[in-house]
């Protein structure tokens, strides 16, 4: 088991390296560099001084030297400076990271709260009216693009019914850290996370439903019944258990999916998170921030897939470790 995880982690390293090189080269292709921000702040800088500064900062070195420096800084937690805002990128990320994390977590929780019971019901009673409803919901949620759905949700529950706020992550008037503050945060989170969650359930429901239906016909279920195991226990101990365990392994992929969706969700609900930061940074051509964000999301995606693989190998003894 440990060996498997270590190997899997080792495979991650070249993936991350390649990702960082691609991003770095992309960044080189992007207009602007570390001095762009200074230039904006101080338009009187003459070209010679600029060139000197460039030389001093190593911006004229060959790209691989710059890359090594960059990656070294990254590893030490130095993300660099936002060209546009001229602040440390880590400061820019802090709060938003927490916001995105919270949104993602809540989305995941809602998604599983919806998907698992529905998947089980649909698989347990296929072709019942409940199943037909669930399959219908699944179909629609698969078909609708996330941004259209989120927008309609916002329009309906935010603007028309006024149940939820239409933007931000917390009420500005509320004092930080108070009970009301937390409530307000939650209030801001619910609509975006439910919108995202409702469209993130497809895979889980579909998998659970068909897996349960298949498992019911498996021979070992007959064995269980032949042992005299009561119907209820046949379901919980054999069918649901065997079908649910692999679902745990979806976690990593779900994280990747939700991360990707966060760009839309945060943009639509005007929610100050990493996704929104990405969109605004790229609109402002703030490429140093864009860089870090792509790197961060790439890292999280790779981590997510890794997580899924590891969970699966824990859950299913048949997956050989070596």
């Amino acid at each position, binding site marked *: 088991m440990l060996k498997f995880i270590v190997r899997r982690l080792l495979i991650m390293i070249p993936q991350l390296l390649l990702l960082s090189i691609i991003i770095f080269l992309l960044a080189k292709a992007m207009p602007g560099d570390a001095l762009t921000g200074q230039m904006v702040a101080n338009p009187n800088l003459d070209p010679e001084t600029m060139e000197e500064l460039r030389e001093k900062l190593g911006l004229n070195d060959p790209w691989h030297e710059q890359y090594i420096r960059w990656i070294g800084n990254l590893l030490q937690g130095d993300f660099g400076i936002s060209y546009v805002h001229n602040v440390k990128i880590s400061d820019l990320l802090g709060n938003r990271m927490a916001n995105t994390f919270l949104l993602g977590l809540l989305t995941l929780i809602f998604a599983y709260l919806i998907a698992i019971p529905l998947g089980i019901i649909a698989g347990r009673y296929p072709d019942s009216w409940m199943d037909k409803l669930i399959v219908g919901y699944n179909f629609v949620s698969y078909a609708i693009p996330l941004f259209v759905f989120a927008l309609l949700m916002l329009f309906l529950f935010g603007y028309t019914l006024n149940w939820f706020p239409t933007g931000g992550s917390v009420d500005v008037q509320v004092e930080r850290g108070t009970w009301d503050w937390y409530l307000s945060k939650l209030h801001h989170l619910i609509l975006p996370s439910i919108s995202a969650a409702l469209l993130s359930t497809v895979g889980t429901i579909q998998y659970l439903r068909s897996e349960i239906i298949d498992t019911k016909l498996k021979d070992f279920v007959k064995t269980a019944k032949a*042992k005299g195991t009561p119907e209820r226990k046949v379901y919980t101990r054999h069918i649901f258990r065997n079908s649910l365990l692999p679902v745990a392994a979806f976690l990593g992929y779900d994280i990747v999916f939700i991360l990707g969706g966060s760009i839309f969700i945060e943009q639509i609900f005007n929610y100050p998170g990493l996704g929104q930061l990405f969109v605004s940074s790229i609109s402002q051509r703030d490429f140093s921030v864009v860089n870090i964000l792509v790197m961060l999301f790439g890292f999280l995606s790779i981590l997510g897939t890794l997580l899924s693989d590891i969970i699966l190998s824990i859950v299913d003894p*048949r997956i050989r470790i070596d």
Partner: protein
Amino acid sequence: MGKPLLQINNLKTSFRIGDEFYAAVDDVSLTVNENEVVAIVGESGCGKSALALSIMGLHHELNTKLEGEILFQNKNLLSLSTNELNNIRGKDMGMIFQDPLTALNPLMRIGDQIEETMKNHYNLSKEEMKKRTLELLNKVGIPNPERTYMQYPHELSGGMRQRVVIAIAIACEPKLLIADEPTTALDVTIQAQILDLMRELQNQMKTGIILITHDLGVVAEMADRVAVMYAGEIVEIADVFTLFNNPLHPYTRSLFNSVPSAADGDRLHVIQGIVPSLKKLPRTGCRFSERIPWIKKEAHEENPKLREVEKNHWVRCTCYQHFDFPKDAEDLHYDIS
């Protein structure tokens, strides 16, 4: 032979295809006595597996219709609720399945799977249960019970898995075992080991066994009494010696002649036509008649019944009296359709 253990009376098992029900087991009556091995032989599609599933109550509830009665310990299994049936299944009746790989839960340890049977029927402490499980594993010939107890099915070989399946079936020392093609998925040498094990256990425990198989060799090795099934019906039933020495029904005889054996000549007998699918089963007259078209219509009964032709030897339809194999069978051209 002991007292009757299981009595099947006019059992009819029908499966739903589309909106209609089609009988896969049709008017089958059969008695299994204590300490007796009854083999049910036939080719795929003859209804033998459906019969086994009906006895154990493992059929699909919505798509299956059961008629007739199955008497076991003075109770009609068909009229029991699932709960009542669960008190019998695993305790008084055990089942051995064809494919030991799929018959075991891949995500559960062997020990847990065996103990599940005991948990369902006894009130034992953990230690007690483990002790009994280890004994069982030992009894079915597993070399290292302590280790196997903690293993998962995929870590065992096919033969070992089938031993585990047997251990599960006999965990509560049932009076009746139903073995559905227990060795079909196994290699010959493993098959021999499993058959020997089953016979040994049967001698020890005096269980009644219903052995479902398509292999006449297995029947000859194991059975006390044999029922031959064709197209949902029992066409012949007799004790094993009588049946092998003096098979009467045309289907039984054809079956014997189509298996290669040391004595036979160059050609094997080929039964004409194909086993009809469930939907196309002939429902009237002698169901085997269309596969022996050279036998005259008059030879068949209109409504064939099982008849006792000699003591304890029952045959369906009178056509057996007129049956003979065709002299020069042109078996190549039997199914130009």
